[in-house]
């Protein structure tokens, strides 16, 4: 998944969708569904809450499609929606059922977690992430550096306690 590499064709599809082409909308959904769903899963703990959050993100995408401007990559615009749409009310209950991967990532502060997910999952460039969350590039890099070091520390501690870190890598919320 590399949203930035597809941004030219994504933008073309978005323009077609703005003109009423529902097929273009379906194509964009297929391209970005996994990224949005992954971020939703790591944000609310997976399960039905992640599905509901994903539905809300794409509903917001459809509702606000008229606001999209062709001057920015579509992925930047979409993930700005993805991190700004509020989680459904039952998200806290879902966190209790979260997998190890979600548990590790959830230890990060919100601002670091958002940057980490946009980089690792959505594969956005640092400049794009700065646009998504409304800050400067150096601030994004600093958050990312802290997130990496914090995750490393958490994973090493869990490994020292005898937990299997590979369990975190087998997270498939509903798949």
């Amino acid at each position, binding site marked *: 998944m590399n949203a930035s590499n597809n941004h030219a064709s994504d933008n073309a599809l978005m323009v077609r969708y703005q003109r009423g082409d529902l097929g273009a909308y*379906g194509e964009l959904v297929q391209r970005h569904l996994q990224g949005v769903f992954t971020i939703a899963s790591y944000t609310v703990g997976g399960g039905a809450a992640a599905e509901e959050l994903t539905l809300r993100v794409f509903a917001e995408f*459809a509702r606000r499609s*008229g*606001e999209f401007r062709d001057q920015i990559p579509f992925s930047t615009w979409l993930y700005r929606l993805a991190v700004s749409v509020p989680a459904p009310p039952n998200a806290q209950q879902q966190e209790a059922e979260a997998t190890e991967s979600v548990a590790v990532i959830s230890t990060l502060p919100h601002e670091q977690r958002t940057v980490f997910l946009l980089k690792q999952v959505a594969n956005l460039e*640092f400049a794009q992430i700065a646009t998504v969350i409304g800050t400067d590039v150096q601030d994004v*890099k600093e958050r990312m550096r802290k997130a990496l070091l914090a995750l490393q520390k958490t994973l090493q501690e869990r490994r020292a306690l005898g937990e299997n*870190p590979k369990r975190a890598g087998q997270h498939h919320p509903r798949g």
Partner: protein
Amino acid sequence: MDCEQFDRVALDLLYEEAEDYARGGAVQHLGHCSRCNGVYVRLKAAQALSQFPLAVPPNELSDQILMREHTARAGQGIGARMGRWVSIAAGYAMRPQVSMGALFLLMIGASLLFLQAHPGDRDSVYVTEKGVPGNESDVATSTRLSHGTPPPAPENAHGALEVRGTPSRAEPAAAAPTAGVSDATFSDGEHAFNQNHFREATELFDKLASAGGPRASEASLRAAQSDLRGRGCAAAVERFDRIYAEAPLSVSGRIAAWEAGNCYSQAGHKDRARGYFQSLAKDPLYSDRAQRSLVALEQLPNAPQGAADDASSPEPAATQTP
């Protein structure tokens, strides 16, 4: 590159977003800086540990998303659909390219408007020659003038055109009434002249000329022209001589020269007439007429000796005027 600079590009290097020159500098710095080398190795290890898998969405999720979109669109009213199109259109309208295009079209339109406005279509410009009587056809040849020395021909000649409503640069005071000279009195003189009451007109203009002021020279010229029409060249030519002598380059002086030249020509005083016409030959306004008059002057017989002494003329003389 120093350590501080390396810290700024370390993550770019890690995620392969660094520019070529930054990457080269960072790699070179890593070769000799143990502190930054340690930082980079630690970040590299953290990145390797932080490779979390992507979640796999359920198959029916994409169908639900498309179904919601379809349902939402079907449920939209006309107002909502119009609002959607207005939003899209507004998005295009806000683009700088559209603004530049609109500005360009505005400039083209404004230019076309200016091109359509032909000068002279609406506001006509009237050009009149000061001191010129309307009838130029009557030429009297019976006037007898006194002899005298022809005036020296001026070296320069200025145009005697005056645009109505715009004072002449050569003689601005003559075109604009000012304090000291009553417009009503000047108008009275013009009225008397137009009514062929030349004596009355002469007296009125003489009063204005003696009162001084910026229109005094113009009044003198009009008095001389009134006298010319009333009593003929013999009475008026000295007036023209004097006006020309006082201001040969002024508008009044050029007109006086033309009047005097004609008077002397009619009286057969070729030398004096030639002097005046030659002085006008360089004037753009009088050039053609002066040249023709010079040619006609050479065809005239010489005036009889002593003719100038007999300056009285029973008939008013009408002169050829510019």
